[in-house]
């Protein structure tokens, strides 16, 4: 789950990480009022779950109330990487003397927390990694001790030559690590961590994403969820515990197991089709899951064919077939359905489906090719 900048900054503030004061506005009038309260110049920043906000014109400086209103209006009208801007953060602008990148994430290879620092702040870290990887300092943290104060100081001295500033920045890094650990974050990032001309250290931007598996122990953070950009289907799938990712094709896919689901999408594309989604109904043969899955898929107006790919290992194919019939009894499905069922009790499953005029193949490749043809309007 991703947080907005202003949400991450609220969390940072609880840990005494210095941030510049700001307010979230949803209208140009509000933005103007907040700007007047803060004093000029101000920065107006789009709050969307997407990187590259600056490049997309989602971050603007305003020197007067009129300008603040006008810039806020422009930003609120933007769509950044497909996401409409619904709110802006209005903060006081500062004079920047230096910019640093600081991030905490998991290093999968060593299975330890990883601190990343770079003196090239303000640039996306992926960009720095591509163009000048030598500018990135990486440090593995022992989860036993957490990031120790002296380690944070040693690290910051490598990006900040001025000792007093390096020390100040080190305490920010220590706190950032605590935010990461305490919130079960998968990423905590300050980019840039700035030193102002006045010698103040400030987290000018904030980015956080949380480990979905740990949300059960952070009800306060779950309240930050902003799912207005998610489709109704995606929200339904999440609430019912299905893994769903919307894609932009026209073949709705329902598969049991994440690996098989990925391989199914790959096959669809291999045979010239385009998958509408990733959807893993998991290992259980609970008929409710099939009902939800079909609701999610049929809620996507682009879907022109539905491909159901089930490998019955532990899951019994006859249970899946029954679940599918229950689902079809409850709802109207107009798109053609192509079914592939194989494994445990596949013969019974086929008999159940045939009694209702449905047929199923046992070959994944055959089913995929059939679904691709049907999505293109060809009946095989």
């Amino acid at each position, binding site marked *: 789950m991703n947080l907005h900048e202003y949400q991450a900054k609220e969390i940072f503030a609880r840990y005494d990480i210095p941030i510049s004061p700001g307010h979230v506005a949803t209208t140009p009038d509000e933005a103007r009022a907040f700007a007047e309260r803060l004093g000029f110049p101000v920065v107006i920043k789009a709050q969307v779950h997407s990187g590259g906000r600056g490049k997309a014109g989602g971050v603007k400086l305003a020197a007067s109330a009129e300008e603040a209103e006008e810039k806020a209006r422009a930003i609120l009208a933007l769509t950044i990487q497909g996401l409409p801007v619904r709110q802006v953060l209005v903060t006081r602008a500062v004079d920047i003397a230096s910019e640093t990148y600081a991030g905490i994430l*998991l290093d999968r290879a060593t299975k330890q927390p990883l601190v990343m620092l770079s003196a090239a702040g303000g640039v996306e870290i992926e960009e720095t990694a591509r163009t000048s990887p030598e500018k990135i300092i990486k440090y593995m943290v022992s989860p036993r001790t957490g990031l120790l104060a002296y380690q944070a100081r040693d690290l910051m001295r490598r990006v900040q030559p001025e000792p007093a500033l390096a020390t100040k920045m080190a305490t920010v890094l220590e706190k950032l690590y605590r935010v990461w650990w305490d919130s079960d974050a*998968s990423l905590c990032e300050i980019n840039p961590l700035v030193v102002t001309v006045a010698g103040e250290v400030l987290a000018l931007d904030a980015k956080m994403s949380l480990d979905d598996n740990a949300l059960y122990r952070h009800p306060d953070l779950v309240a930050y969820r902003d799912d207005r950009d998610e489709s109704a289907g995606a929200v339904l799938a999440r609430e019912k515990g299905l893994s769903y990712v919307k894609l932009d094709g026209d073949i709705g896919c329902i598969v049991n*197991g994440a690996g098989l689901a990925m391989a199914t999408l790959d096959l669809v594309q291999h045979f010239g089709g385009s998958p509408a989604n990733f959807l893993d109904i998991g290992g259980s043969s609970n008929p409710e899951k099939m009902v939800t899955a079909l609701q999610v898929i049929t809620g996507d107006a682009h879907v022109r064919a539905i491909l159901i790919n089930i490998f019955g290992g532990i899951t019994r194919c006859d249970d899946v077939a029954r679940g599918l019939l229950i689902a079809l009894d409850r709802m109207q499905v107009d798109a053609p359905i192509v079914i592939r069922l194989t*494994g445990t009790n596949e013969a019974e499953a086929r008999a159940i489906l045939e009694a209702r005029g449905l047929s199923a193949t046992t070959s994944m490749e055959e089913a995929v090719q059939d679904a691709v043809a049907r999505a293109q309007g060809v009946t095989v």
Partner: protein
Amino acid sequence: MSVLIDKKTKLVVQGITGRDGSFHAKAMQDYGTRLVAGVTPARAGSEIFGVPVFGGVAEAVAKTGANTSVIYVPPPFAADAIYEAADAGISLIVCITEGIPVRDMIGVWSYLEDLSKRPEGGPRLLGPNCPGLITPGQSKVGILPGHICKPGRVGLVSRSGTLTYEVVDQLTRAGIGQSTCIGIGGDPVLGTNFIDALRLFEGDDATDAVVLMGEIGGSDEEAAARYIAAHMSKPVVAFIAGRTAPPGKRMGHAGAIVSGGTGTAAEKIAAFQAAGVPVADLPSQIPGLVRAALAKPHRKSTVRANGRRPSPPKMKAKARAKSKPKRAKATKTTKPARRTKTARPRKRK
């Protein structure tokens, strides 16, 4: 011989009275696994499927001699179950549970690493979020369906569950049996990675070739490709799922995500190709690639003589890495001299 489990494996099931735990305990027992005990703290003293239920793993080990554990407890309690098994002296801990917070697993891993530094070593963890493993005809631990497997000489290691079943099924239908199938799991923090599994298969005299099934996210496949080029004498065939996955989206598995432009299927496929490992475009191509790989003479394993594999001299490893791609080019008549010299006929089934 086989990898990690065999007929002698004595299994304790943690969470044996739960819905999944009891279902799979029965399935494992029916398959022939030596189920010796279960653990459910609140049900200690009872019995299920003819084996005793204990309040803790240590007691189960003391009274039954269990050496392997499989965990079916819910995510909030799963890390604790791993610590408990490790402290009880279990040597192989298989964690099926999906949805354990990464922070919990970081702690578990750090603890297991410390245990492994003891003179007597520490336990191996498989998973979490994995289907477990099976040595066909001998033992299965986890949730893999036994009936699709067939005893044989091809090892399989995979990050996924049902995709593994799909490929095992295709291998079996093609008449290719399996030595051991290992599901390492779909989480970002895993107890056993591809290299660990490859090392086990390389040292297993019941395995002639390995099928490796990776997916997007992380760089474990790339590390495996480098390991194969430098250390594996047995042929490996690879498959990577998630070619069509969009960046930044988690594809079902917590670990299956392309982030910051890394972890893509294209990178992984390129890494295997550079290591001379044939990569199947479709799952259905895997049996054919395995057959082709087995039909070719390959480097002699240095493992069989003494059961251990000395690490190859650095120079040679480098030289081999430079002479890539090897297996992919093996249809050519000119092969590196070293390989021709050490080539041996394939062991008959």
